């Protein structure tokens, strides 16, 4: 009786359980394994009941066989569960995705990658250096504390313990950050001991051992688990293994977005979170027009992840031309730049792009492929001024070199021509000086003889004429001398002979002969000279300077006017002012006052060289010259000379 009761209840409940298994969120394969196992378990109990009732041994044999079959399906179920846990890509897409702890799978995958890297590293690297990298990372990411075992392997239990009760999403983000620093750091260490190429090969080997699918799952989930090595491997894998022709297109396509990443990432890393968010929004809007950019992922810290986009490009049909990819990348750049510029400013933006862009892109550019056109297309969309240098550089190296050579040759030619002209000018001036001054000396001598009546008696009218000729001759000689002096001063042929001087003495010596002229012209000539320290200067040049300024004042001051010469110390300089109550200078003429041959009043005698000579002399002495004036009220010419100890 009891046997019948328990048999009915047991077989009944087990059958219901077997049926309910189909309602579990599992893949159909796993569900079938479990339910088949349970079905044979039900058969076991049926056979047991039949054996109890009949006592025939054959039912026990059937029972044993059913137990065996049930165990086989049980084992298959167990294996499937583990397999799914280890091949997360399929499981996370399947109905059992709610069962999986994603962060644990992430950790396991990372740990496997890292352990395989460590396996190779311990053979050639100093353990202390490896520990140092771990300690450094653990400082920034505490979840890695104590994660390196004595056997130099990642202790996933320790990491899980450090994560504690952290929420799954948060754990994922923490793991991502920690391992994205740790793993590439370890490969970098390997690269310093071996070489960059061998490190990349090692990364490729590790990926193939872990399984391309698992790695790609990681790649799709977190971007680039091996950092730059993933990007290099991607480039090699996708670009180099494509057949000819397609490879060319592939290169151009990925290159367009490589430019995008290399240019944008360093800029985004300088941006505020709000700016990154704004850029994401802009890119989201752009997807409507350019669906190709859908794979662009920008992290909060500004990291640009293009792994999904690369995969998308790889799958693009042949008819999607290079131009359409380039157009998408340039459109993406154009929407990003204005926002970035607003945040970090144009100058910083330009500085960053200048530092990062050029060399990196050139390094990556395949030599055999002419990407000039591609690049120019991309750069067209960039804001003016950002990549001007690069644009120029890409005009082709040869063309640039040729242009530089051509310009240099032109400049050399122009320089030698100018030098020859300058020499000719000097020779001309020397010759003119000699040719003009020699007859003038003879004329002057004869005029003196005529004036002193040594050549015979002359009338009063003739005497006056001789005097006038003599005065004009003197003026002519003065003009010639000034032109020559200017030329010599400008060319540096007259070097100032610097010695200690008392400027007071020079001013005094210059003013004394002028007093007579002042009396004749009925001009009041006054001086206000304080006690001045000695200065270093050329006596002849400074005399010429003061003489020119006072002479200039006399020229423009009418009868009854006043000329004042003031000299005083002003801090570590001496200030000399020559004030007059003359006609003054119009405002528009003031800036031209010290230029060569400039004359305010053409009726006033002179070559217009005096003030220009003054300027050259003052500048040669390290001083400054200037003028203050009001039209009709008079002018004040001033200069300063430094007091040198």
């Amino acid at each position, binding site marked *: 009786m009891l046997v019948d009761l328990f048999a009915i*209840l047991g077989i009944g409940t087990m059958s219901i359980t077997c049926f309910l298994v189909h309602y579990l969120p599992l893949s159909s394969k796993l569900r079938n394994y479990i339910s088949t196992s349970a079905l044979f378990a039900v058969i076991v109990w049926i056979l047991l009941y039949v054996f109890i009732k009949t006592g025939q041994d054959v039912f026990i044999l059937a029972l*044993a066989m059913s137990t065996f079959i049930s165990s086989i399906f049980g084992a298959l179920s167990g294996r499937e569960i583990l397999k799914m846990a280890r091949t997360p890509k399929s499981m996370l897409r399947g109905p059992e995705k709610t069962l999986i702890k994603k962060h644990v799978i992430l950790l396991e995958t990372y740990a496997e990658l890292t352990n395989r890297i460590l396996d190779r590293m311990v053979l050639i690297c100093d353990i202390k250096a490896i520990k140092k990298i771990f300690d450094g990372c653990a400082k920034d990411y505490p979840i890695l504390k104590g994660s390196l075992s004595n056997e130099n392997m990642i202790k996933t239990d320790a990491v899980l313990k450090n994560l504690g009760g952290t929420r799954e999403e948060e754990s994922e983000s923490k793991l991502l950050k920690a391992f994205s620093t740790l793993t590439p750091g370890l490969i970098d260490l390997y690269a310093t001991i071996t070489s960059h190429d061998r490190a990349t090969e090692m990364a490729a080997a590790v990926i193939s051992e872990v399984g391309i699918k698992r790695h790609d799952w990681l790649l799709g989930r977190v971007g680039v688990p091996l950092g730059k090595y993933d990007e290099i491997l991607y480039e090699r894998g996708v670009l180099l293994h494509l057949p000819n022709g397609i490879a060319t297109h592939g290169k151009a396509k990925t290159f367009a977005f490589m430019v995008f990443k290399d240019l944008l990432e360093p800029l985004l890393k300088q941006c505020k979170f709000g700016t990154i968010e704004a850029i994401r929004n802009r890119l989201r809007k752009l997807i409507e027009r350019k669906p190709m950019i859908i794979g662009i992922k920008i992290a909060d810290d500004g990291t640009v992840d293009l792994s999904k986009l690369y995969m998308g490009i790889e799958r693009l049909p042949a008819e999607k031309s290079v131009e359409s990819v380039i157009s998408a990348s340039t459109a993406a750049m154009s929407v990003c730049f204005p926002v970035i510029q607003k945040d970090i400013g144009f100058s910083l933006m330009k500085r960053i792009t200048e530092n990062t862009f050029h060399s990196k892109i050139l390094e990556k550019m395949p030599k055999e492929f002419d990407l000039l056109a591609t690049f120019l297309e991309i750069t067209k969309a960039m804001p003016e001024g950002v990549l001007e240098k690069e644009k120029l550089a890409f005009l082709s190296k040869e063309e640039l070199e040729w242009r530089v050579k051509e310009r240099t040759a032109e400049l050399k030619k122009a320089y030698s021509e100018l030098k020859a002209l300058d020499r000719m000018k000097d020779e001309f001036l020397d010759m003119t000086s000699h040719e003009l001054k020699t007859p003038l000396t003879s004329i002057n001598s004869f005029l003196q003889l005529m004036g002193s009546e040594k050549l015979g008696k002359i009338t009063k009218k003739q005497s006056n004429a001789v005097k006038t000729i003599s005065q004009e001759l003197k003026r002519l000689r003065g003009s010639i001398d000034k032109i020559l002096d200017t030329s010599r001063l400008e060319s540096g042929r007259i070097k100032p002979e610097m010695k200690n001087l008392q400027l007071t003495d020079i001013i005094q010596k210059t003013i004394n002969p002028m007093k007579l002229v002042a009396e004749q012209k009925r001009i009041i000539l006054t001086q206000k000279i304080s006690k001045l320290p000695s200065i270093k200067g050329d006596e002849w040049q400074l005399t010429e300077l003061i003489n020119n300024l006072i002479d200039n004042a006399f020229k423009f001051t009418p009868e009854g006017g006043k000329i004042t010469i003031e000299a005083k110390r002003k801090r570590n300089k001496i200030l000399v002012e020559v004030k007059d109550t003359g006609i003054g200078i119009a405002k528009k003429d003031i800036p031209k006052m010290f230029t060569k041959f400039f004359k305010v009043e053409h009726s006033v005698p002179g070559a217009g060289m005096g003030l220009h000579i003054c300027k050259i002399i003052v500048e040669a002495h390290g001083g400054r010259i200037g003028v203050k004036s009001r039209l009709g009220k008079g002018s004040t010419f001033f200069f300063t000379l430094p007091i040198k100890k």
Partner: protein
Amino acid sequence: MFEPLIILFVSFGLVLVIYSILNVFKALKFLRFPKYFVPIGFGFIGGTMLSLGILFLYLAGALDEYGWIILIYPFVGGLVGIYAIYLFRRKLRAS
């Protein structure tokens, strides 16, 4: 006369069940709500132990007499299984 065959099947079955339990145990750390997988594991172990029990009772010639006691297990196990599936589904729906 079937005794060696019966011993062979049950022994192989036992090995397979141990293998599957180990797999589930390894997978447990990847799975959420691991406490619901524990009764499943115990169910497997229990089933296997009972198979051994059936074998021993048969060899001892006592299966006719005490076999009904073993039939209590599928009843209890079935009830627990139904309840576990119900709880599991509710939990998954909530998450």
